[in-house]
């Protein structure tokens, strides 16, 4: 047993923490999210320079190697700073899928470009009407010469408009398959929309868009499930970072805000509330470690229990911590002016992404009887 991060990992975390604190302030973020694209090319290049975009990618394709715990450190730091750049979409979801399921040629083409910051990816899987069921997909692909063409409508694609290349799931004769689709190709239309949490989402319409098959035809569902499990583990780590920032802000506020001639933190009712926030956050941290650890579990039920368990516990924690941080700030907690409200919104969206608490309780329960 060892709960310590290696020296390299600590270095990565410290570098990124410093960068986020120094160069990604709240006002800078506000400028970015209100800009046209909703993300900053400058920040993206800096993340590439810091090596962050190469974390977790195979060394033979321009990556730095490393695994889920390295991704966890990155996500936690990004969560602390509420970074809105498409890291999860590009590196965790997109590059992760290519690295695990792509051909050598696809990996060689895409992964070095991701690591260097030259290419962004997005996973276009979710469709309207499916809620959290990963298999409910109506987009279809048919053979056309030696390639494939796709038709369908993907909804709420995370950072779909920032992507140069989309990973699109579609029905094929033998099941669900995955395709690389050039985002600028004819037949691809994207509608970019701000999300509640400062990120961007896109509707992606495909009309006879050309796609390049990733992995075996009909074999994509387990790959997509695994990719989303990686994303859930990453989101849990991001939430841990966000909760840490909120607790720090709230405890600081309780110590300085005075009412009735004393700091409001002198009221025990509020101290206990802050303590409860802390307890939630510590349990969430433990669960985020477990999730990262079990991503590689060979037993599917073991992985399921850890990932769904983490999403449940972190979801409940993020909800409590977010709501209480707002409450304990009083009126300014519900304004756009203060970072607290923005953390609360991001944490709320994290609880809804890739399955809410109810969904993952059900998944956990099924793994119990399996």
């Amino acid at each position, binding site marked *: 047993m060892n709960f310590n991060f290696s020296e390299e990992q600590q270095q990565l975390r410290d570098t990124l923490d410093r960068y986020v604190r120094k160069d990604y302030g709240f006002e800078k973020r506000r400028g970015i999210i209100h800009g046209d694209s909703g993300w900053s090319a400058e920040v993206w290049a800096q993340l590439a320079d810091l090596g962050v975009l190469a974390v977790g990618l195979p060394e033979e394709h321009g990556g730095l190697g490393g695994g889920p715990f390295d991704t966890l450190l990155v996500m936690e730091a990004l969560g602390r700073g509420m970074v809105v750049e498409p890291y999860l979409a590009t590196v965790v979801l997109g590059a992760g899928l290519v690295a695990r399921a792509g051909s050598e040629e696809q990996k060689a083409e895409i992964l070095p470009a991701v690591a260097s910051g030259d290419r962004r990816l997005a996973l276009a899987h979710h469709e*309207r009407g499916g809620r959290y069921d990963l298999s409910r997909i109506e987009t279809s692909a048919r053979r056309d010469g030696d390639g494939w063409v796709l038709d369908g409508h993907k909804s709420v694609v995370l950072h779909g408009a920032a992507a140069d290349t989309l990973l699109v799931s579609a029905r094929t004769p033998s099941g669900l398959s995955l395709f690389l689709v050039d985002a600028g190709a004819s037949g691809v239309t994207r509608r970019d929309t701000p999300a509640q949490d400062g990120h961007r989402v896109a509707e992606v319409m495909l009309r006879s868009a050309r796609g390049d098959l990733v992995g075996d035809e009909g074999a994509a569902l387990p790959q997509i499930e695994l990719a989303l499990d990686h994303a859930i583990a990453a989101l849990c780590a991001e939430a841990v970072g966000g909760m840490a920032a909120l607790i720090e802000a709230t405890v600081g506020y309780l110590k300085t805000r005075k009412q009735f001639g004393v700091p409001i933190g002198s009221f025990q009712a509020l101290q206990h509330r802050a303590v409860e926030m802390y307890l939630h956050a510590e349990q969430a941290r433990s669960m985020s470690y477990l999730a990262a650890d079990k991503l590689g579990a060979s037993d599917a039920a073991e992985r399921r229990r850890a990932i769904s368990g983490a999403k449940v516990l972190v979801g409940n924690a993020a909800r409590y911590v977010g709501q209480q941080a707002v409450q304990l700030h009083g009126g300014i907690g519900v*304004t756009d002016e203060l970072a607290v409200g923005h953390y609360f919104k991001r944490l709320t969206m994290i609880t*809804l992404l890739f399955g809410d608490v109810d969904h993952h309780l059900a998944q956990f329960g099924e793994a119990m009887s399996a």
Partner: protein
Amino acid sequence: MDLNFTAADEAFRAEVRSFIERKLPADIRRKVLESQRLVKDDYYRWHVLLHEQGWVAANWPKEFGGPGWNAAQQHIFEEECADAGAPILSPFGLRMVAPVIMAFASPAQQQYYLPRIRSGEHWWCQGYSEPGSGSDLASLRTRAERVGDKYIVNGQKTWTTLGHHANWIFCLVRTNAEARKQEGISFLLIDMNTPGITVRPIIMIDGEHEVNEVWFENVEVPVGNLIGEENKGWTYAKYLLGHERTNIAEVGRSKRRLKRLKEIAAQQPGSDGKPLLQDVRFRDRIAQVEIELMALEITNLRVIAADMEKRAPGPEASLLKIRGSEIQQTLTELMMQALGHDALPFQHAAMDPEYAGEVIGPGYGVPLSGQYFNFRKTTIYGGSNEIQRNIISKMILGF
């Protein structure tokens, strides 16, 4: 013991219902039911329609031009308005400053202000809170110095709800800096068009403009705008808190939102493809809040019955405020949760009822995340839920 309304009450309910059915404009009703953005004119139109009927001042006695309803009738009226999707009339004139004027103002002030509140000519906002004085309201620092027949007001109010719609503001101001903090406060009515007043928007967590900062710089206010006696303002403000409790529980509106939540859950697909309303976990969540609301409705009626027996108002209002606000928050949270990934898009332009462009996800989903975020306010304003708990522990439990 009988938990039912009398036959006369039920007849009254039918009369109210039929009036609302005939008069409430369909566009306003739709906006309310679908949680869309309302503009001042929406509130104003409904205000005028009720005024023409003589019902706008639902909580006023006959002598001041109200309908003279008892507590049960007021409750029924509110419930019917809420159920039908009528907008919440701005409470600041009708429910907040008016009772103070009736109880403590001079006859001349009563004759001047009350008819203008009823007609909607005066649109009021509430100037109590300040940046440094929220829960500890009595520490407020906005000063009013008497010079001849005027007060000169300097200071800043904040969180002023719909101050940008208002032409009058009632303020608590400090008129004696030496006295104990509760004893140096006065209750002053100020015309918002007086030189020296600046209103600045505060943008809320959902991106909407609802509250404001109001700055006073050497604002001259005639001494005739003082209510009651100088330095007695705290007493008047407290009187108001004790009397404002019909409707504090928001039972009617929560019942309407519960109905809406069920409609949404019936239309949203669950992960198994069946309607979300059939998902056991989600349905349990709805059931929990519905049961809590059933209890609150009866608790609310118990308080109303006590009012009818003219027992002095007690601290039960705090109970209604705490549970009522929690229920509102749970309902808005479940509506958002029902959307799944469709809760993510922030479709600000589509919040405009005139918007005719494309929408991501179901149209009814557009306002729901913002509504959840915004409703965190309900446990903060009107005396935070922590302050309400302090009141109960002190006044009821005797700690």
